[in-house]
């Protein structure tokens, strides 16, 4: 293939991945949780570290460590499924009445396609998110940050095998995290 063809293949893949991420966001915002859970691989790692204020040059200590430290989230599919089931009880007061949530996914960047863009079985993708939550009457949260996802080819579609969520906050400004990133 020519360089031009390579770039074309990569562009198509980036488009496909972005469409996948938008569709995922749509499922969450429409509260179609079963379909959302089906997009998660059985071995998914869902990790959201906490962040410290550290001196310039000491960035290695900025984030709490996966599997080792306390994090906002550090879990797999079983716990994510339980979180969905909890919302579905209808008596999970923190989401009852249910919140109005919009996921804005933007700055989608294809970081790596393995083994290649033409035959991608796994892709590493970065994006920015803005999650808007409004609940009951006037309670509103806006959470902004970065996501690093590892997607795995699954037939004609993709599954999320890993999600690292970098929230751009130190003290969490929301009273809870009852929604998905």
């Amino acid at each position, binding site marked *: 293939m020519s360089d031009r063809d390579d770039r074309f293949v990569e562009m198509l893949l980036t488009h496909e991945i972005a469409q996948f991420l938008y569709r995922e966001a749509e499922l969450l915002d429409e509260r179609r949780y079963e379909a959302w859970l089906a997009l998660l691989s059985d071995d998914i790692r869902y990790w959201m570290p906490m962040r410290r204020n550290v001196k310039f040059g000491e960035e290695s200590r900025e984030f709490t460590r996966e599997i080792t430290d*306390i994090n906002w989230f550090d879990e797999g599919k079983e716990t994510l499924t339980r979180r969905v089931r909890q919302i579905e009880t209808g008596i999970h007061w923190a989401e009852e009445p249910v919140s109005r949530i919009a996921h804005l996914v933007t700055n989608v960047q294809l970081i790596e396609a393995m083994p290649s863009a033409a035959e991608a079985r796994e892709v590493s993708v970065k994006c920015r998110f803005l999650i808007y939550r409004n609940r009951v009457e006037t309670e509103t949260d806006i959470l902004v940050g970065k996501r690093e996802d590892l997607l795995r080819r699954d037939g004609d579609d993709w599954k999320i095998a890993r999600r690292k969520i970098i929230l751009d906050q130190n003290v969490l400004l929301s009273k809870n995290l009852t929604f998905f990133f």
Partner: protein
Amino acid sequence: MATAHVGGYRPGLVDLKTGQISREIFVNEDIYAEEQERVFARAWLYVGHESQVPNPGDFFVSGMGEESVILTRDRAGQVRVFLNSCRHRGMKVCRYDEGNTTVFTCPYHGWSYGTDGRLVGVPYFREAYHSQLDRLQWGLVEVAQTCVHKGTVWATWDKDAPPFLEYLGDFARYLDQMFDSWDGSDGGTEILGGVQKWLVPSNWKFPAENFSGDSYHNISHRSVDMVGAGPSGSGRRDMPELNLARKLHIAIPDRGHQTTAYLLPREVEVPAGYQHSPVVSDYFKKCEEARRQQRGDWGRLITLVGEVFPSMAFLARQPRTIAVWHPRGPHQTEVWRWFLVDKNAPQDVKNFLRDYYIRYSGPAGMTEQDDMENWGYAHKASRGTIARRYSYSYEQGMGTEVDNYEWEGFSLPGSVTDLTQAKSSEHNLRNLYRRWAEFMEASDWDELASWRRAQRAAAE
């Protein structure tokens, strides 16, 4: 708003005879301001854990009430606590959460302070101050007293406050289980990395009373009981103990500390918990046995959730955590959360517990999410002029507490309510507010340390 002081704190706003407490103490801004003076500036407050500052120069920025403070270990190895505010113009001298340093330099005009708080650097000292500034007088403001207790660091701004162990009184024994290893070895706990910090839209006393022993809020957590987030699968995680033990509320009336606890029977073996994980189940079984051997009757007592007056809460059983309620105005609280494990536990056990802690506690915790929803909207719905006219009811179980509680030959200090039949009581909550009202009215520590008067009288 102006109704705050009608009748005073005792018995007016906090009426323990009728079991009614005014909403004003939660929502009134004048009361809030007074509370900062009378409660937070006089009580002992939890600052952090020694293991967060293991080496000289290590620091951890913490909070005491509304104040930002620096917990540090100076060059001599001493744990120190300073107000995080430059003496010259008030700028925070440290805006990192933690780290290691030799000096704290103010980014505004450049005054710098050693880890012992001394003012060591003043720009243009000779030229602009003509070498006249008395640098010894201008060190960082230090707390009046500090105490390291089983690895935990406590401090107070009040030089007249009694020493920390006297402040705890009989409560120290109940707190042991929080800081000791589960097998009963002294102080054998460590902090997991990462302190959770988040904002809750309610007065700090909502979480404080909840952790003092609100055993009535079952409906809050029914959804998590249904889906199961606990380490033993679905349902409540403490079923084995619930079915065997005496369930107790224990309050120390003259100190304002209180906890809930299970007292296990002497002869019966408690069924193993954590059955999803044999290694964890085995670990706790061995610890239970060791603790009983080492501590005798005290080894049969399992401290659950409790509160050291005013703003440090704990959960001694798993998920083992320390929470501090930092007031951020009458209508907001910043919660800080530390998590502990046994230092000598196998790594598998630590990992298992860490997963469980995250799943249970804090803003992403499947259990606590529902608490914060309730505190927030309870507070919000109590702010109106009309709403404030109506007291909250704390009448549950009034008069059912006993002194010198005894079961199977083991006598417990404090004022105890046996909830095995009654299920719930607000005895512990009343104890919290009794002490709160005393702090709000007392002019000094001589008045607050009522046990000293009793001791003096006995001596005479």
